[in-house]
């Protein structure tokens, strides 16, 4: 009887037997990694806006306080996006005719809003309240990063649930003194953890139940 297969068939057969599971597992691992990649989650990639607003210039350069524009950050779940009026308080005086600001002036004249694009966009089933975080010592920068260094705005975190949980389980890793929450130049203390534990008491942070589902999902 002639050989049905050549000699190398053996090698090929074994190779495939070993390769198939590896490829499957590998592919799955790649998929998992991809889901966590900045590319997929859009971290660090600037979002296009009708007006190329520079936090770097306004916050970093001019030192405008976050709350000047995001007025309701301390009082409401929604931090607030400034109405055209706010822009015009200055830009009716300076950069009056800068072409970049044309959309702002249009909005002001026509009474039609500027339509910004969300940078930090949570799913509809997740409820985040700015005011409680600010009031308990979670800084703007803790989630939004050093916006004072952003010529255009991008997000600095992936906003996955595990990321939220990290802080909800161990607030001490991130808490700041309440008067520091809006500061952009705050230097994290070297003894963050012990400090954090004190701040949990000082800021009246009730840690039990922070990881309840209903804390964020309703």
């Amino acid at each position, binding site marked *: 009887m002639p050989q049905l297969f050549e000699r190398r068939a*053996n090698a090929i*057969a074994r190779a495939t037997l070993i390769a198939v599971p590896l490829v499957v597992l590998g592919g799955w691992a790649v998929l998992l990694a991809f889901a966590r990649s900045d590319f997929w989650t859009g971290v660090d990639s600037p979002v296009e806006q009708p007006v190329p607003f520079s936090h770097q210039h306004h916050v970093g350069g001019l030192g405008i306080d976050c709350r000047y524009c995001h007025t309701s950050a301390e009082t409401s779940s929604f931090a607030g996006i400034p109405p055209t009026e706010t822009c015009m308080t200055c830009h009716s005086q300076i950069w009056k005719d800068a072409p970049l600001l044309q959309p702002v002036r249009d909005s002001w004249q026509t009474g039609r809003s500027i339509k910004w694009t969300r940078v930090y966009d949570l799913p509809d089933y997740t409820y985040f309240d700015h005011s409680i975080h600010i009031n308990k010592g979670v800084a703007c920068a803790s989630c939004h990063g050093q916006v004072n260094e952003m010529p255009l705005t991008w997000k600095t975190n992936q906003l996955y649930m595990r990321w939220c949980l990290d802080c909800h389980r161990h607030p001490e890793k991130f808490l700041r003194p309440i008067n520091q929450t809006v500061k952009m130049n705050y230097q994290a203390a070297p003894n963050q953890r012990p400090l954090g534990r004190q701040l949990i008491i000082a800021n009246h942070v009730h840690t039990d139940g922070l990881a309840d589902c209903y804390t964020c999902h309703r």
Partner: protein
Amino acid sequence: MNENLHGIMAEFREPEQLLNAVRAAYEVGYRKMDAYSPYVVEGVAEALGFKKTRLPLLVLLGGIAGAVTAYAMQWYSAVIDYPLNVGGRPLHSWPAFVPITFELTVLFAALAGAIGMLALNGLPKLHHPVFNAPQFKRASQTRFFLCIESDDHNFRLDEVRDFLQSRNPISVTEVEK
């Protein structure tokens, strides 16, 4: 002598012939040989000097691995990683962890057994010298073969052929590598 010789193969009609041939060959002192049959013939393997296999051990280890994996996973995720109050039950509800532990035990054991069998048998081996034997087709159907291989330390071509002939086989052929 022929470097390209895998061995010499005898074809028998009856399983008993094969069994006797193997026993005889073993007494003569041949070790590097193998018998081929369409279904298992009791005793041949033993006659070839093949005593016991490590498969049961593999399966046991597989089972233990499965059990440990399963229970550890359940305990870690339910007690350590995300403790949740589910219907007021304890975090470490061990009775509820038993079924999955059992299932994975069986699964891992079975996989160990199957993979172990193939590995120890050196399968897949699509190409093998014995397939060169013209009549070997029948090894999977009706006939019984004994192949004494050339790398046996007291392999002498003529002696082997004579020996095999003496077991009145249907045929005796040289098998190319």
